[in-house]
């Protein structure tokens, strides 16, 4: 038996040595930098371009080869995995998840100085994204791409029902009228509805509707959730009406009944391509998969409907550098590459949302890709929306964004399943988010001082508003209200 034991022990040592010798780092002659990202086929080409860019910009070995090797880590892209790995000190060097979310855990390296030195500070991208790249004046990330939520429509589907594509910009009444006409023509009476105007009423659409009435989820200083408001209740009620009364949006049961499989971009894209959805609310990255279909449809782009203040969400897949990375300097080269012409041209060509540099959206290659005439007219509209109506989602430093998302989604589901009235759900949403904020403050005394300072500022803002005075713009921390106050003429710009 002891020989078996010794044999097993030796076998384990041998296997361990072999594993160590065959580790990716050991097989590369240059330092390896890992990039935790989504499993998008476009990443392969982006890595190739990066290696070329390294050589072109002099980041090379004495033999003229790229000084580092960038490798993908698509398995560990999930947020909870990244956080657990990050706090344990074993994560990939570059992450492209939400910067403010990860900075809550202090997991990202401050890249302000590198960004200034290597030319990828926030002035090289959309101004609307500043809140998603920096925290307290320090830059933590740079966009890999920029997405703006719009309705991307299938003009062929509309033509099939002898309808013209909807207008670029529309109010709620127009949206509802066209939607009813569309589903009325598309679904034979007495049969199960299989064609819908657009995808389901999700939190994005409902919050955009509330914002279009001047209500954001947080107040001006991000210290309190303000969704206990008839404007949010109205958008919840509208979502319910469109789903269960007008049937212009699919219910959860309708959505789950489509026999499609998810792929890159989700199931909605297949349904959109085959005409089950007239439009889908999504970013430009949907074109990556749409172009793979044998006959991609003719496209048009419409903004999300609004009541009074047209707006939409803008977001970014921003790359940041892991604070525990041993290759921070080399990782910063990658972020510099993201601001380069080579990378922006690549994003323009493969349609992975909008390129980080707005200047890249003014080219003919972006506006009229010769191989995709069916998309003409949509690209510049998406880019224009990013610079005009798009505002980032507000994030309070006193609550985890994932908690906000979960609370809002559950309350929307309660309305959709008839468990709560819109007013109850709106009240409950605000109560729960505010409870969570208070809990965070109780748990993190270091946040308390900042909170109290902001709460005092909020009182001053409220007082100014009551007195009809203009509010200094730098008092307002919520990106939505910064724009909304300017729009309403309530802001005193510096």
């Amino acid at each position: 038996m002891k020989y078996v034991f010794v044999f097993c022990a030796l076998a384990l040592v041998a296997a361990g040595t072999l594993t160590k010798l065959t580790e990716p780092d050991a097989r590369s002659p240059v330092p390896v930098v890992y990039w935790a990202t989504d499993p998008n086929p476009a990443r392969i080409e982006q890595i190739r371009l990066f290696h070329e860019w390294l050589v072109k910009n002099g980041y090379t070995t004495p033999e003229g080869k790229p000084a580092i090797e960038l490798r993908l880590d698509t398995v560990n892209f999930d947020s909870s995995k990244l956080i657990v790995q990050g706090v344990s000190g074993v994560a990939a060097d570059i992450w492209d998840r939400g910067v403010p979310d990860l900075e809550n855990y202090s997991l990202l390296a401050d890249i302000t100085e590198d960004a200034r030195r290597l030319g990828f500070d926030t002035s090289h991208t959309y101004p609307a994204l500043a809140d998603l790249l920096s925290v307290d004046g320090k830059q933590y990330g740079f966009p890999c791409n920029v997405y703006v939520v719009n309705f991307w429509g299938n003009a062929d589907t509309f033509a099939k029902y002898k309808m013209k594509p909807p207008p670029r910009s529309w109010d709620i009444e127009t949206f509802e009228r066209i939607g009813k006409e569309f589903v009325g023509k598309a679904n034979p009476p007495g049969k199960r509805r299989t064609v819908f105007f657009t995808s389901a009423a999700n939190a994005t659409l409902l919050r955009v509707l509330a914002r279009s009435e001047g209500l954001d989820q947080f107040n001006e200083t991000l210290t309190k959730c303000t969704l206990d408001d008839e404007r949010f209740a109205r958008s919840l009620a509208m979502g319910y009406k469109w789903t269960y009364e007008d049937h212009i949006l699919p219910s959860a049961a309708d959505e789950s009944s489509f026999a499609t499989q998810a792929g890159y971009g989700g199931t909605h894209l297949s349904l959109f391509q085959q005409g089950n959805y007239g439009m889908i609310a999504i970013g430009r990255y949907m074109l990556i998969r749409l172009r793979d279909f044998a006959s991609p449809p003719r496209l048009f782009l419409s903004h999300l409907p609004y009541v009074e203040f047209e707006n939409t969400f803008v977001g970014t897949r921003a790359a940041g550098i892991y604070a525990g990375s041993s290759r921070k300097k080399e990782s910063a080269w990658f972020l510099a590459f993201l601001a380069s012409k080579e990378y922006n041209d690549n994003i323009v060509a493969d349609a992975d949302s909008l390129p980080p540099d707005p200047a890249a959206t003014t080219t003919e290659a972006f506006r009229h890709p010769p191989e995709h005439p069916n998309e003409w007219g949509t690209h510049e509209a998406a880019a224009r929306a990013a610079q005009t109506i798009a505002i980032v989602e507000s994030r309070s430093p006193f609550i985890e964004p994932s908690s906000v998302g979960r609370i809002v989604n559950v309350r929307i589901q309660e309305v959709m399943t008839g468990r709560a009235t819109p007013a109850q759900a709106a009240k409950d949403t605000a109560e729960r988010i505010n409870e969570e904020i208070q809990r965070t403050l109780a748990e993190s005394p270091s946040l308390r001082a900042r909170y109290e300072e902001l709460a005092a500022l909020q009182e001053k803002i409220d007082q100014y508003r009551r007195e009809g005075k203009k509010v200094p713009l730098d008092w307002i921390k919520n990106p939505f209200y910064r724009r909304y106050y300017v729009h309403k003429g309530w802001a005193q710009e510096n």
Partner: protein
Amino acid sequence: MSWSRAKKRSLALGLAFLAPNILGFLSFTLFPLVFSLILAFTNWDLRLHNIFRQETLRFAGFENFSRLLTERDFWKYLGNTAFLMMGIPFGIAGSLITAILLSRDLRGGSRRIWVYLVAVVLLVLGTGALLLAGAGATGMTILIAGLVGLILMGGTLGGSTVYRTLFYLPHFTAGVATFILWKKLYNPHTGPINNALRPLLQSFGSVIQATPPGVLRGIAWACLVGMAMLVLTALRRLSRAWRDGEAGRLSVVLGGALLLAPAALATRWAPWSEGGLALAGAAGAMTVLALAAAIVRKREFRCRHDEGLGFALMFCGVLMIAQFALLGLSRVAAALPAMAANPDGMTPPEWITSYYWAKPAIMIMGFWGAIGSNNMLLYLAGLSNVPQDLYEAASIDGASPMQRFWNVTWPQLAPVTFFIVVMSVIGGLQGGFEMARTMTQGGPAGATTTLSYFVYTQGFETGRLGYASGIAWTLFLLVFLVTLFNWKFGNKYVND
């Protein structure tokens, strides 16, 4: 004591052999366990306490536990967990029935093979009829019919081994794969379950419309009366147990509380017009009066307060579940006319996308998994150990098959049943995570979020590891107490 060199060498060798296992256990089981217990008493939050941010870690005492008890979601998720656990008795019964069927010789004998062949021919003809009736699109139905035919044929040739393997299949199939399969089966519009139910419900809807409303109301009331009868039966049994000194005061009171629970909850689910509140009031008053009468009545035999607690809770718990089933039936019967009057006719449930059907849908799936699980194997093993002499003696005494089951098989299987109940209850309290994560994300509106899923969301979505550990240890405490209870009060009946 002096150790000889050979003995020391032998000890070292033995320890060396054990070391990998012991080290593995210490590193990957004991250490995390103890560490999580410590975490449960701290304010450890990944946002504040990690290798990049070291805010002061505070000893929180029982703060995490007290917060948990005041958290409204905790009670909802505990309720969800308990609701899903109500499927356990059905699962156990299913696995027992399956085991009894599979313990017989199912190989095709001269006569039996003809029965199977006739069944297969009927199946083929039925499938043909479906096709002729224009059901060609429902390929899944035909596929299922074909599979049933194949299974019958396989069973004819291979006997119970084929069936045992097939029934055990769910257990060794990866959980996520089966959950995805069930998600497809539950598809509201295109799933085979609803495809099969739809025509049935359409016909049923016509029958309901033609039925006088009084009949349906009568059925609804009959179910409620059935509930009351169950309560009465249980009270009589409890009362007898009290009188004979088989049940103490605590056992009677707790058993009564269980019996009362459905009627009390009926007040929440049924409006005045449907008599829910009246029924609840009547049942409640009946229970309270009966309990009071039982407690003050002179007893023939005295016993401890907790005497017969296991029996009382088990007996009343099963009847409570039966009452819930009757209550559900009553509600359905009362709602049938409105459902049938729907312009679209009677429609099948939306299963996992409906708040009200999501939990029953998961229970049905759990039942399917339970009947072919390890429980079935345990019962099969238990059945093979029942002495045949007992059956022979029972037969000689003229016992019917049912009497043989109740008086021979069931008592002989008591130790196995006890073990299965204990393990199922533990599994039930800890379960639900994979299903919620894969099928529903805990929704709709939190309907399928169980305690284990709650631990995950708190630990990995909000980063509150201290709090998540607190929930996990509360769950452990719950499991421990229930198991302790099972051992203390259930084991006695097994040994009796």
